[in-house]
Every structure is written in structure tokens, then in C-alpha cells.
């Protein structure tokens, strides 16, 4: 009996993992618009790198903050393009292909189904941030000690995870509203302004700082700056980023479930 239960649990875990990992990977190829090399390089690598240069040179000119502030902050922020838009595409593009009905007819549990869709964007965001940080540091001559690299990797991973959860929550709105990419555009600007990745938070009004505390990337940007400056990994900041990511992830799952239920009641999905 015990052995049967263990085998059953093992089978369920295997099926759960496959939906999360294999399903997530296939859905990334199916739904992410920027997988072709020109789009990937142009949109996710070159664009954010130029944004780093823009803010660094502007910061030098205006004397708002030093190179490290802008370089590291914008490198962390670079993950947002793939995470926010990717998370949105992971749900909203189902409408574009007319596949939403076929997906919602799945008898599988929705948590691995939807979280699996966010997973590739975590890795994508991590890669983009790491690339932008490395390239910008080499070009602008910012020294980063080798000892800081593991911590930096962890911070960027958590930041990308939190940002992907944020993107998935925005994508959930795609089950209810048609023009959800409008929300993504606004959300990207909100991240640029409120997270302190590109603009020093000390210059913002109190309510904006409070809003920034609840957004992904805010705490990760501060943690990454501390690491590149030679400080240790700030566990409090990392924990705050993790908590923010978990909160957005939970909200995404709740919204997806609520909108799916609502769609059956109100017929709000153009599912077929």
C-alpha cells in the first residue's frame, strides 16, 4: 500500500514537472513573439544595452547619480522586457492563435500550466540582465569582483522570477480584457520610474516610493548595487524581492483562476 502510494505520488510529481518544464518550454516557442534572432538580439539585448548607456551618460551630465547606480540598475531592469511582455504574451497570445479554448479544456491543474509558462521568461530575463551587465561593465569600465558574481547571479535570478510573476499577473488580464498589451506598455514605464532602477528613489514622492516597494526589481536593484560595490549579499533585500515575487505569483494564479471561472459564467472569452 505504502509502495503504491509512493509510486502514485512519484507519477504525479513527474507529470506535474513535465507540464511545468516541457509544457513551459514548448509554450515559450509557440507564444513568445521575439524568439527569432533579429528580434531577440535587437529587442532584448541591444535595446536595453543602449538604455544603460543613455542613463549613464545622462547621469554623468546631470550629476544625478554615479555610473554604478545607472549601470547596475538598468541591467537589472533589462529583464523586464522579456519578463513583462513575455508573461503577457504567454496568456494573451492564446487569443491571437485561437487556442485559448483548447487550452482551457485541459483537465490538468492550472498552477503548473500557467507557472510553467512563466518559467522560460525567468531564464530569459536572467540571461538578458547578465548579458547587459557584463557588456556594459566591460564597455564602461566598471570593476566587479569575482567574489560578487555568485551573489549577483542569485539576485538577478530572483529579480527575473519576480518580474515574470508580475508579467504573468498582467497576462492574466488577457483572459478578461482584449487590449492587455496596453497594460504591459504602461507597466514597463511604471517599472522604469518607480523601481529606482533608473531613477533614484530618494527623489520620488513618498507614495511613489511605497508603490515601488511593491514592484519587482526594486529590492533586487539595490541588492545588486551593494554587491558590485564590494558589499555582501543583503539577505533582507533578497528576501523582500522574493516576497514581492511570491505575492505577484499568487495574484497571477488567483486572477487566472477567477477570470477562467468568470469566462464560463459570462462568456467573455473568444475561445473558438
Amino acid at each position, binding site marked *: 500500500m505504502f509502495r503504491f502510494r509512493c509510486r502514485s505520488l512519484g507519477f504525479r510529481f*513527474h*507529470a506535474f514537472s*513535465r*507540464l511545468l518544464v*516541457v*509544457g513551459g518550454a*514548448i*509554450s515559450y*516557442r*509557440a*507564444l513568445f513573439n521575439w*524568439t527569432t534572432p533579429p528580434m531577440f538580439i535587437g529587442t532584448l539585448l541591444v535595446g536595453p544595452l543602449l538604455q544603460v548607456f543613455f542613463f549613464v551618460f545622462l547621469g554623468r551630465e546631470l550629476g544625478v547619480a554615479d555610473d554604478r547606480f545607472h549601470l547596475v540598475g538598468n541591467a537589472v531592469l533589462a529583464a523586464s522586457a522579456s519578463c513583462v511582455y513575455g508573461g503577457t504574451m504567454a496568456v494573451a497570445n492564446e487569443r491571437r*492563435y*485561437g*487556442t485559448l*479554448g*483548447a*487550452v*482551457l*479544456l*485541459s*483537465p*490538468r491543474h492550472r498552477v503548473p*500550466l500557467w507557472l510553467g509558462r512563466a518559467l522560460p521568461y525567468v531564464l530569459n530575463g536572467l540571461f538578458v540582465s547578465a548579458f547587459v551587465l557584463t557588456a556594459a561593465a566591460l564597455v564602461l569600465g566598471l570593476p566587479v569582483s569575482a567574489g560578487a558574481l555568485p551573489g549577483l547571479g542569485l539576485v538577478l535570478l530572483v529579480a527575473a522570477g519576480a518580474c515574470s510573476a508580475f508579467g504573468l499577473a498582467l497576462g492574466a488580464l488577457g483572459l478578461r480584457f482584449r487590449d492587455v498589451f496596453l497594460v504591459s506598455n504602461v507597466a514597463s514605464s511604471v517599472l522604469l520610474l518607480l523601481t529606482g532602477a533608473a531613477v533614484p528613489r530618494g527623489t520620488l514622492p513618498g507614495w511613489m516610493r511605497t508603490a515601488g516597494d511593491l514592484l519587482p526589481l526594486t529590492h533586487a536593484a539595490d541588492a545588486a548595487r551593494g554587491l558590485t560595490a564590494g558589499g555582501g549579499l543583503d539577505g533582507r533585500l533578497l528576501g523582500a524581492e522574493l516576497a514581492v515575487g511570491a505575492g505577484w505569483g499568487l495574484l497571477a494564479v488567483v486572477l487566472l483562476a477567477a477570470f477562467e471561472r468568470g469566462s*464560463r*459564467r*459570462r*462568456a467573455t*472569452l473568444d*475561445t*473558438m
Partner: protein
Amino acid sequence: MLAIEADTLRRTYTSRTGWPRSRRTETEAVRGVTFEVKPGELFGLLGPNGAGKTTTIKMLNTLLLPTSGTARVFGHDVARDPVAVRRRIGYVFGGDRGLYDRLSALDNLRYFAELYGVAARDQKRRIAELLDLVGLVGREKERVEGYSRGMRQRLHIARGLLHHPDVLFLDEPSIGVDPVAARDLRRTVADLAAAGTTVLLTTHYMAEADELCDRIAVIAGGRIRALGTPGSLKSRVGDRDVLDIEAYGAGDEVIDRVRRVPGVRGASVEDRGAVQTVSVQTDRGAELHAPVLAAFDGVRLGRVVSREPSLEDAYIAIVEEAAGSAAPEGVPA
């Protein structure tokens, strides 16, 4: 146990228009539909556009909640136990959409195999079987965006069958498919039913329904207007003769004139480019050639053929009868 039970199913859609003072409009798409389908039966649901066919299917497959009434699939309530229903059903819909264009057919099937809970060790074999069944072997690694409509339709069917569903909903599967592909599709559907799969088919092609279905329900205005075997439906117009008349430029006033000829029970028009085929149903043995042709005064006519009534004639008679007694669709609330 019955495969499908629908008991006085109703579905009302609510829409709002205008801003800032919006106006709420309610439309009753399905108004008390009741029918049963036995395991292994191939059941047809026929009706004009907007009759409520797709809404009925969406309630049966759990995508929509009924406003009232109940439905069960192999005993599982579609509203209260949707996951159990989803495990037992497959859904195939017609048209170009519903597949991931950037992926190959193989990857589309791999993904849906994960979604529909096909065990990892069975996926490869099952996908190979289905590719063979729908004739896509050799093309499975090509991106779907390059597929013809017929190939897409076959892929839709393969997807719907991935998890060996007991009930297969086919919503206009042959729409826009060429005659050869449609024939292959009918053969596939017939084979599935022969193998014990319960099939609920909606289609606009009467010949397809006549060839395939064990029983047919005709739905119009959200209500079932007739239900029976193709033979029993045809017998409803067994007291009629049909004249098929080729005409060039017969307007509505001409068709109305034809309908007013004593002994004419109904008339329908099918446009085929420049030529129209006007099917006129008359009382059996009434010999109305002369007065019917006279009603086409001024219209150039081609071939005139007298024939036995078909399922299409029965369908048209049922739908026209329903249209005559239809209530307004939109009810402002």
C-alpha cells in the same frame, strides 16, 4: 449510462453597449434544449448560423456554464464536475485558427499531449498513431503556418483524439475543406464511431450529416425543432415533390411569387456564381411545373429537374417552419 444528457439547457448572453450610460441587452442563444446521446452513437446537430449549435456544444464541453438546465457527460455534470468531463471529451472545431502556427504539427501535438494528460511514455506512440490516422506522416516537422486548411483540419482532429476521448465534439469540422479532404474526414469520423467513440457533429453539409449520423437534431432559434434518424426527418417531407430549377437573376420578389403558388410548400435559393438553384417543394403529385415556371416570368431559366425530397429539403422545411414561428432574439433588459 448515456454518453450525453442535455436537459432543458438554456444560455443567455448579456452585452452592454454605449458609454457612459450603457444599455444592457440579453440574448437567449439556447432556449431549453433537451436530447440524449447513447454511447457509440454519431449524433448530428444541424441548424442555421446563430441557431445555438456552438453555444450548446460549449456548454456540453464545459467552456460555458448553462444559465439554467443541466447536462451530463457519462454521468458527470458539466457545471459541477468540469474536470471529470474534460478527461472524457475531445473537441475539434473547424477553421484556420486553434493551432500554434509557429510550431510544427509534432510540437503542437506534444504540447497538447501534456495538456490533456497523456502519459510521457505513451506520447510518442500515440502521436505517431494519430499522424498516421490523419495522413500527416512526413509533414509533421513542418511549421503549421505553411499548412493548407485541410491539413490544419486533420491536425485539429489528431489533437482532439490525443487522450482517447470517449466523446468527441466536432464543430463544423469540414468547413472550407476541399471535397477530397472532406471525404477523408468523413471516413475518419465514421471509423471513430465504428470503434465506439461517441461523436456529436455539427455541420452545414446535409449530405455529410445524412451519410454519417445515426440521429439528427435540427436546432433553430435556440430550440430543437426536430429530432430523429435521417430517414425519419426525410419522411417529414415525404408528402412533397421537389423541383430544382436553374435560374439566372431571380430576385426576392420572384421567389415570393413562387412561394405564393397554390400547392407550393416552400422555396429556397442557393447561389452558385451567376446561376442560382431554386428548390421548390410542392405537394406530392400536384404537377405544378407550369404555374411554378410561370412565376419566374422574365427570368432566364436553365435545367429543371424533378426529384425525391432529400435531408436538405427536410432541413429547409423545418428551419423555415421555425422561422415562421420565431420570437424576437434580442430582449432589452
